[in-house]
């Protein structure tokens, strides 16, 4: 049994958030499930939809996604679809039409789940979050403190997020799960690569669901810059991630299965990136 508030200003919202044992509600697709399962039991639920909904905007190579923007809003935005095809692919694999009509990218970050598909995208697209009321801008991966935990002060919340366009990159994204629709990933992998002829100019690699949060190793990525894009190189990469990643066993899969998949998906990414 909670009380419900729907504030209309940033200040009102942050005061309520600081004052009560509370949870923010945007799409509610995560919150409603957790409250019903009694995983969480907040005293107060604060609906963010009372704040005026801003437009999705583009500034040079960046997109700004404001509070209360749903996945469906993004998929209905032609410029977004043209400029962020990999993120479109990722979003289309989140939930179902009913879920995408309500759920928001900011809620996915708020969830801080290692299986968060949009969260994984923010690791690859240089994601920033704008925090209110402090007006800070922070890298999204720095916000994540562990499963379900954000590094925010009691009065703070995410007001918008920003992603950077990856022009001239090839991409691969795969989410392995038990069903097609509504899949919470057992493991997922996203790779972005920019080539100069056969030479790797830039590469970004993120795994989901294999650790307490999305996993990205900058040193391994940096180590392949300037090398030839080849099967051998991806075999090496597969070994490196296999050694470094230590997933857990849970209801969806065993640690052992996940570890094998870490390797196999990396090899698969080579064949897929090589095709197009």
């Amino acid at each position, binding site marked *: *049994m*909670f*009380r*419900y508030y*729907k504030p209309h200003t940033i200040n009102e919202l942050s005061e309520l958030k600081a004052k009560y044992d509370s949870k923010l*509600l945007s*799409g*509610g*697709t995560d919150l*409603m*499930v957790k409250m*019903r*399962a009694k995983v969480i039991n907040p005293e107060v*639920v604060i*609906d963010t*939809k009372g704040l005026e909904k801003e437009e999705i905007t583009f500034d040079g190579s960046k997109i700004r996604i404001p509070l209360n923007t749903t996945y*469906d809003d993004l998929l209905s935005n032609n410029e977004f679809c043209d400029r962020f095809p990999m993120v479109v692919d990722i979003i289309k694999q989140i*939930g*179902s*039409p*009913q*879920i995408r*009509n*309500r759920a928001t990218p900011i809620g996915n970050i708020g969830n801080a789940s290692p299986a968060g598909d949009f969260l994984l995208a923010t690791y690859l697209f240089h994601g920033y979050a704008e925090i209110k009321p402090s007006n800070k801008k922070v890298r999204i991966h720095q916000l994540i403190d562990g499963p379900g935990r954000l590094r925010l002060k009691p009065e703070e919340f995410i007001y918008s997020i920003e992603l950077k366009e990856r022009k001239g990159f090839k991409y691969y994204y795969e989410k392995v799960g038990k069903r*097609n*629709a*509504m899949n919470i990933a057992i493991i997922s992998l996203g790779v972005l690569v920019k080539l100069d002829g056969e030479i790797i100019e830039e590469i970004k690699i993120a795994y989901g669901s294999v650790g307490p949060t999305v996993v990205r190793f900058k040193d391994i990525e940096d180590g392949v810059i300037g090398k030839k894009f080849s099967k051998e190189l991806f075999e090496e990469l597969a070994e490196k991630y296999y050694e470094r990643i230590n997933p857990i066993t849970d209801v969806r899969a065993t640690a052992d299965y996940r570890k094998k998949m870490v390797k196999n998906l990396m090899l698969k990414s080579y064949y897929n990136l090589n095709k197009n």
Partner: protein
Amino acid sequence: MIIKFKLNGKDVEFDVLEHKRALDFLRDDMRMTSVKEGCGEGECGACTIILNGKNVNSCMVLAVELDGQEVWTLEGLNEIGDTKIQDAYIEKGAIQCGFCTPGFIMSTKVLLDKNPNPSEEEIKEGLEGNLCRCTGYTKIIEAVKFAARGEK
């Protein structure tokens, strides 16, 4: 908390408990019994309603969130005689126990409003959030094609 919203084209005002789900409110208080509870966690789509033109799971919405919004349930489509989709489901025998049917019809309605001539793939994607334990989906897809373009 008092909420005012449009239900099936009519203005409604009601005092709801703050923690009540839209699903329970619509079923118990508004007597819209086409809105079913299957899983209660966003997976099955039996509780699908149309909220501001979009299909959503009413088990994941609070009743208070309906304030100021526009909601349609299957009862409303019946009242205004918009039964083309229902008729197609009957015609094609896309119903067995019928538990999932209202949810499917609401999702079909939104799909066809947006895309009057969907391909089989688009139909499958549009109905991805609705589960049926009985039919095996073939007849449901036939029904949607029939509703869309009278395809036998």
